[in-house]
């Protein structure tokens, strides 16, 4: 907050001096009530989050976050450890429900429907907001069953042939088909780390979600596997909306169009990725991306 005030007073001085007036107005408009710098709104949002607060028992983990997630875009969430970016991500498909003491307030809307509304069932929500986790976590079942599990429980397939088709297209979209097409009956846990992670992505795709959440999907992978996943994320953007939490700023810069910077549970700055990495407007963002802490 102090930073914002300082900046605003600088702008005021600039305004007084009569130079850079338009830029100054823009910055003032961008500063929302929550204190986030940058434009939280997008023209074509898939999900809109307003005043999101998350509490773990008495401890507040996330403070008043407002953020729109645009369709067919990759938004990356960066920030130092413990800044709440993963917590925020897990709010988007209500994965936090599994933690007893976790309480979420505020509004997260998807297609105009509040996902925290009491009447909304969490099962279809998770089918339309898929998730890929930090550590590859294939089921200890065959590759085929890993992919087929989601469609099966949701009754998405008409018959066995249709399921075969879903499995094949999902694996193709995840770029894994060529590597595993001859051994679909072998356990998914027998694949390499990078393959396992792509298997998990294929598993998420198989239930035809609209949004895919990725929680540091490459942190357990080597650079080559990471490159493949990043390439894949870029391809998936065509059909899906992707929100990715990452510790690697290079990765955020490579795969995302928008970037949100979190700090101590607050959304400090959000904007076009290029802008965030080349011309951050907030001191904290600048300090983080230039490596002064994190």
């Amino acid at each position, binding site marked *: 907050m102090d930073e914002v005030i300082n900046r605003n007073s600088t702008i005021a001085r600039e305004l007084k001096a009569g130079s850079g007036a338009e830029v100054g107005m823009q910055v003032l408009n961008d500063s929302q009530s929550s204190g986030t710098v940058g434009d939280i709104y997008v023209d074509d949002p898939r999900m809109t989050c307003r005043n999101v607060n998350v509490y773990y028992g008495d401890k507040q983990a996330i403070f008043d976050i407002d953020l729109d997630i645009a369709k067919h875009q990759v938004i990356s969430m960066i920030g130092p450890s413990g800044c709440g970016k993963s917590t925020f991500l897990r709010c988007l498909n209500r994965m936090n429900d599994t933690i007893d003491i976790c309480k979420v307030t505020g509004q997260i809307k998807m297609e105009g429907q509040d996902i925290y509304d009491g009447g909304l069932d969490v099962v279809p929500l998770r089918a339309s907001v898929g998730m890929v*986790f930090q550590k590859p976590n294939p089921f200890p079942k065959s590759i085929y069953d890993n992919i087929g599990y989601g469609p099966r*429980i949701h009754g998405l397939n008409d018959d066995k042939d249709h399921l075969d088709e879903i499995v094949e297209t999902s694996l193709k979209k995840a770029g894994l088909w060529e590597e595993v097409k001859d051994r679909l009956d072998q356990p998914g846990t027998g694949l390499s780390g990078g393959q396992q992670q792509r298997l998990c992505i294929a598993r998420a795709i198989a239930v035809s979600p609209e949004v895919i959440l990725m929680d540091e999907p490459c942190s357990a992978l080597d650079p080559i596997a990471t490159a493949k996943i990043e390439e894949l994320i870029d391809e998936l953007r065509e059909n899906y909306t992707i929100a990715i939490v990452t510790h690697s700023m290079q990765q955020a810069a490579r795969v995302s169009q928008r970037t949100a910077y979190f700090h101590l549970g607050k959304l400090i700055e959000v904007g076009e990725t290029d802008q965030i990495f080349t011309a951050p407007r907030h001191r904290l963002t600048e300090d983080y991306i230039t490596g002064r802490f994190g």
Partner: protein
Amino acid sequence: MTRVEKSLARRYRQERNFKRLGLGAILLGLLFVSFLFISIFANGYTAFQQTFIKLDVFYDPEMIAPVGETDPDVLSAGNYGGLVKATMRELFPSVTSRRDKKKLYGLISTGARFQIRERVMQDPSVIGQRESIWVPADDDVDMLIKGHIDLNLPESDRRIKDDQLSWIQGMQEEGRVEKRFNTTFFTAGDSREPELSGIKGAAVGSFFTLLICLAISFPVGVAAAVYLEEVAPKNRWTDLIEVNINNLAAVPSIVFGLLGLAVFINFFGLPRSVPLVGGLVLALMTLPTIIIASRAALKSVPPSIREAALGVGASPMQTITHHVLPLALPGMLTGTIIGMAQALGETAPLLMIGMVAFIVDIPGGAMDPSAVLPVQIYLWADSPERAFVERTSAAIMVLLAFLISMNLLAVWLRKKFERRW
């Protein structure tokens, strides 16, 4: 540098001592276990053999029934005891006095007459004919043949008298005495006569008891564990329940026996000495073990699997039944088998509900009075006859064989289904 080197020697010495200490503990344990096994085996292996005596029986129509008789009632009413006695008198015509005859008859087990009756009932055409059959010797003769009777003792202190000795020697010279595999031990129920007693009644009783125990404790235990671990909120009440379950696991088993006596027998009026009540009591006793093992198995399923299932939209119920339970099941089964092994070896609570009764018949179901293996061991250990000493050890060997195979099964299951992530 020198200071480091100085302390280095001490550190290595400590490490060596630590290793030695551990090795010593293991060796001591092994020593005790091998001592136990050797003493049981040394005492018990002879029980798997039994002395038999060959008799030339004349199926006397006057004593049994007229030739050609087939009515089972008439056949079973025959004087088979007299037949055995007559055969013995025939074998040793010199024995005449009443006292000596009594001693002579004592060489043959009382089971011989039942064996002969069986033979006649099966095939009535033997009446009027002569046949050689092997009948079990009395347990004292058996002990003598196996060398458990000290012949240096004065005659009055011996179970086998001098003239009996000479008769036995006479029969041995004629090749009428032989040690054979003791099938009776595996096919008969309990008996007052050691040579006629067996463990089948107790083994079948144990089987029914464990069946009831498993049928109750496994589903209840697993359901309780799943509820506590996966569904129940973590609050003061569930903490209290957890503490109580852990406490129950440490309650002396005899208390469960008293509870069973008060609740199942006195309140619900179930019969005494039956495997049903035994199984119920043992189920109460085993439940904490199974719940604790099952909870540990559920805890060991990595949360990432749960997240993966929830992440593709599985409901909590589907997550548990499709993913968590199958992965936890080997651990649950292991815990259950170990609990069952514990229940198989349990004696004290069963004494309380009357399973200590002397029961000759082999139970046909869970509602028939019966003994169980450990109680049978307890009963035999209490018997004064020398021949029951080896049978006690033999029964322990059988019980240990069951326990070891159950534990091996548990280890095998664990190894087979062990998963690494």
